[in-house]
């Protein structure tokens, strides 16, 4: 921050012996203890940027609180971030504040949506983002605290607290933190940020409004087609086994061993996407509400009988799980041993929901 810049946040003196207890009593945590945001710690965080502490990145619903650089730094301290992570945290908040990301809806929906952060580029090595074994799990400060910083910002600046305006029915552990680095070094494909128009030597964060990961086991498929069918038919259960098509995006996190199988058969990401779009289909007769469950193809889909661009739907009409191939985002992450990939189901997507958003760090 500029040398002359001043911090404007209100200072509170703790009367208790333990400042961590005070922060709990003020409702400023995610349920886990936070690092007390002393002025010294916040200033160290702000030294990682030249930007003015009062610069506004954006507002965060549902309360539309102002996410200034200073407020973001305070929450990053509380989350346990090292100052070297701060530029990444700022990019994360910039992405979250983009209108198309629809953070307001993500923060309040009964669906239990939460942002998944994907980090690409050289910053991964520079700040120690884990992309290998346990990629979506615990044990790494950068992953754990960058994701947590966004959660604390959503709580403290956005005002999204459960049992108040946040109405997630079930919630899930990835709401605490969900930050993964793409394992670009083990991927046969171009990394996500390059696919999205950035240079390989740039570092980016990509935010996805989704849920928690669903692990998919396949230790037996030895060719791309068998493996894709295995992954795809497991993903057919996302949201509900009869929600065809989804009205959301899906992130498929391919483990390095599975990625090798696709590479061996020369499949590109687009080949995989196209295959999943074309093959993971069920006939309308299996999707009608009341068949194997009350849930079913959405009312809007049943109405497509009347749409001009479609043949009238019959019981044999096949509906795809994925609305379009581009609704599947593919990254490679995880360790080099084990044939376990993962799928992350998205919250409502497109113009009516949240769009995947990438920002340069």
């Amino acid at each position, binding site marked *: 921050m500029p040398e002359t810049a001043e911090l404007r*946040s209100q*200072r509170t003196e703790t009367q208790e012996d333990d400042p961590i207890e005070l922060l709990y009593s003020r409702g400023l945590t995610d349920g886990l203890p936070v690092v007390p945001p002393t002025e010294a710690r916040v200033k160290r965080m702000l030294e990682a940027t030249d930007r003015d502490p009062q610069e506004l990145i954006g507002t965060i619903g549902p309360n539309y609180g102002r996410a200034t650089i200073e407020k973001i730094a305070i*929450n990053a301290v509380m989350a346990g971030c090292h100052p070297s992570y701060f530029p990444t945290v700022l990019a994360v908040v910039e992405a979250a504040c983009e209108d198309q990301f629809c953070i307001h809806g993500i923060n309040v929906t009964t669906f239990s949506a939460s942002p998944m952060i994907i980090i690409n580029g050289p910053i991964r090595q520079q700040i120690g983002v884990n992309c290998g074994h346990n990629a979506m799990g615990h044990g790494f400060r950068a992953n754990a605290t960058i994701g947590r910083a966004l959660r604390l910002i959503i709580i*403290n600046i956005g005002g999204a607290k459960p049992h108040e305006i946040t109405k997630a029915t079930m919630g899930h552990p990835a709401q605490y933190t969900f930050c993964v680095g793409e394992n670009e070094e083990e991927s046969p494909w171009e990394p996500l940020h390059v696919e999205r128009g950035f240079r390989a030597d740039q570092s980016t964060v990509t935010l996805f409004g989704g849920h928690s990961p669903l692990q998919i086991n396949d230790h037996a498929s030895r060719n791309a087609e068998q493996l894709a069918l295995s992954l795809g038919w497991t993903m057919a259960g996302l949201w509900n086994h009869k929600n065809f098509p989804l009205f959301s995006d899906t992130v498929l996190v391919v483990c390095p061993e599975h990625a090798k199988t696709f590479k061996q058969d020369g499949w590109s990401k687009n080949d995989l996407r196209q295959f999943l779009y074309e093959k993971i289909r069920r006939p309308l007769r299996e999707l009608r509400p009341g068949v194997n469950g009350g849930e079913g193809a959405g009312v809007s889909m049943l109405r497509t009988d009347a749409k001009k661009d479609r043949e009238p739907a019959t019981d044999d009409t096949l509906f795809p799980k994925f609305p379009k191939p581009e609704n599947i985002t593919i990254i490679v992450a995880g360790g080099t041993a084990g044939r376990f990939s993962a799928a992350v189901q998205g919250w409502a997507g497109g113009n009516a929901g949240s769009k995947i958003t990438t920002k340069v760090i």
Partner: protein
Amino acid sequence: MGEMFLDPTDKVERSQKVFAPRLDTLQGKTVGLLDISKSKGAFFLDRVEEILRQQYGVKDVLRRMKPTVTRPAPQPIKNELQEKCDAVIEALSD
């Protein structure tokens, strides 16, 4: 003296919201029904409209719909409901 810490919340001053004056009767009033675009909202609001017209003698019912459930209602819709209606019912459904 204890440790000092900085406030992580946004302390923007917000204007105090007050409730609109309560209505004594719905007779002869215009009631806005805002469908938030959730599935089957219209089904529910059709019945509400019927009850309002038949049992409460409202003068008019103004039906509007948010483009998407995921975002707040666009300002023009809010303005119109505020200007034309004596009361508004916003329907959440699923």
